[in-house]
């Protein structure tokens, strides 16, 4: 009936009340804060456009490169396909598939970012051109910054993939970077539809 000393050393296992494991939960909380950040930018955009904006949007003489941005949208959505393929590949033990998927995702994301920078240089207005210019560059720039962060994460994931990391059972690095990348894509769909289409 004696009580013996604990055989366990070190701090206790972290409490996990959530049904999501801690690293994924961390990414989810980060994304939740990002959604609020984008929400504040969208609030400014809709205020400038609907409440305080001119009758016509974009205000003359400005035009938005809808077609180029549409192609860029297709590129970004395609990068989500390759990201998903990458994770599915490592889950099946296909290391080459994972590596190819990650490389393609980084390449497509980089293409998106470079195209957006190129678009900025040719769009014909700047952030100083009233509320329209400010909100356009604010929203698309904020998203571009997120693409850059996503690409940084994916680059490290790709390096790890080529260094032999990740297995069919241990691939959290790919999973979490994939969640972030899909979130970045989702936000672009919202930005593209509201800023360029509607």
């Amino acid at each position, binding site marked *: 009936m004696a009580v013996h000393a604990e055989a366990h050393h070190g701090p206790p296992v972290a409490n996990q009340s959530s049904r*999501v494991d801690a690293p994924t939960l961390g990414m989810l909380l980060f994304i939740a804060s990002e959604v609020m950040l984008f929400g504040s930018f969208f609030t400014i955009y809709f205020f400038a456009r609907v409440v305080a904006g001119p009758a016509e949007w974009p205000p003359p003489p400005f035009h938005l490169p809808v077609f180029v941005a549409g192609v860029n949208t297709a590129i970004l959505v395609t990068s989500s396909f390759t990201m998903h393929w990458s994770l599915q590949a490592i889950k099946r033990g296909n290391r080459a598939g994972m590596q190819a998927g990650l490389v393609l995702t980084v390449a497509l994301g980089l293409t998106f970012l470079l195209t957006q920078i190129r678009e900025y240089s040719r769009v014909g207005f700047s952030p100083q051109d009233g509320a329209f210019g400010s909100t356009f560059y604010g929203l698309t720039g904020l998203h571009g910054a997120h693409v850059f962060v996503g690409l940084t994460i994916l680059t490290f994931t790709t390096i790890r993939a080529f260094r032999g990391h990740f297995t069919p059972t241990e691939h959290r690095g790919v999973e979490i970077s994939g969640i972030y990348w899909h979130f970045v894509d989702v936000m672009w769909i919202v930005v593209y539809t509201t800023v360029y289409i*509607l």
Partner: protein
Amino acid sequence: MINPLRSEAEAYRFLLLTVGYFAAIALAALAIGTWAGIIVFLGLTLAGAIYVVRASRTEAPRQAVPSRRGRANERRILVIANETVGGERLRNEIHTRSEGYDEHVLVVTPALNSHLRHWASDEDNARLEAQKRLEASLDRLRAAGIDAKGEVGDAEPVQAMEDALRLFGADEIIISTHPEGRSHWLEKGIVETARERFAVPITHVVVDLAAEREDVQEPT
């Protein structure tokens, strides 16, 4: 509730749904007019909200698997009881479960509190009362030759179990309650919820303090 970003696969599915959602709104607005876009927006949003509400009701909880602690010949038993520790059958149950092992018993008494006091963080009295009940329980167990430790737990019994599991790492759980009809825990389905949440054997011991009569349900 549904979390669309819980895994990469779900996030990917969410992306595809987002593409479809905004494509439908944009197409309706461009092809027919602004009001058509608004109607499609409202319709799809309503359909999505209904789906989320319905799906969240059927979502199964994920079981927590406590990590094994202690030596191989050690049997760790977590006892959750408000005031029903001390019955003979419960003591026998602990003896039976730990036969052939060095038993290590932790009694957790939830600091039961009213909802209003809980939300006002007014839990000092609840913890004080729980501490008294816990000490009485430990005295009765020690009198029976069971060297148990104890602690006051969260006001929510399942949460108290989960907290204790993280620190204690029990091999099994014994939940001691009043008989049906007099037990709030049974009314709230605490035993069933615990069996859904924790991947360890759970024994439910019914203690009728008034009649000094107890009944034991076998672990699942």
